[in-house]
């Protein structure tokens, strides 16, 4: 419990420091035809450098059963997610930590995101997680 809170806290600080919690920063990355900001490549690169180094030994010690299929739900879901991301500039982590903005915009986004997830369960009864 406490470790999960701490991990969430550190994750959130990383989102703010990196600029991911700022939709404009995200949209400037996605806007390759505009004044392109490549910063998010480095956010992802910095994060993956750490997970790539540490995940393998951790997962070897305590394996997790991951899905590995590249199927239609994966592609369709990722496409829908990408479209929503490109409209609003928020993916789930940044949206949650940006609840602290106390703005109507973020509350509406998060409420719609939870509702969208519940709706998805009716359409595709798949379990959560990557």
């Amino acid at each position: 419990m406490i470790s999960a809170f701490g991990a969430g806290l550190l994750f959130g600080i990383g989102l703010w420091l990196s600029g991911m919690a700022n939709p404009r920063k995200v949209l400037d990355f996605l806007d390759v035809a505009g004044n392109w900001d490549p910063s998010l490549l480095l956010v992802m690169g910095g994060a993956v450098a750490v997970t790539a180094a540490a995940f393998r030994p951790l997962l070897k010690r305590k394996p997790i059963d991951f899905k590995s299929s590249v199927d239609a739900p994966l592609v369709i879901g990722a496409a829908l997610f990408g479209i929503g991301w490109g409209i609003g500039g928020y993916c789930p982590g940044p949206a949650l930590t940006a609840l602290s903005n106390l703005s109507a915009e973020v509350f509406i986004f998060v409420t719609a995101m939870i509702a969208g997830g519940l709706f998805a369960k009716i359409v595709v009864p798949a379990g959560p997680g990557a």
Partner: protein
Amino acid sequence: MDNFTPVSALAGGALIGLASVWLLAANGRIAGVSGILHGLFAQPPGERPWRAAFIAGLIAAGFAWHLIVEVSVSENPGLGWTAAAGALVGLGTRVGGGCTSGHGVCGLGRFSLRSLVAVMVFMVCGMAATFVMRHVL
């Protein structure tokens, strides 16, 4: 590219990676934010305490950040678009089994082909949607 911030991007990314490693090492869980959130509201309920704790930490980080940094009002496409975007993100991450953190940070970190495909698809679709929003509409 005058808005490029390489140092804070790399440092923030490294913290996100560290947090993901922390959750895997301490809780044996993948830091996929969409999966953690959807699992919190799933029926029947299962393993809610750690999910709620992680999300509480995420939100607390925002309040802590606001105490030390002044956050300027950012881009807002309007509340209708915002609601549509949120619904698509919720639906898509549930159907596709992950988001920028689950497929991106964690999936790429374990060299998953499934996650690599997801990342490429949501990046390209995100770029297309942003292009339409900023340059077409």
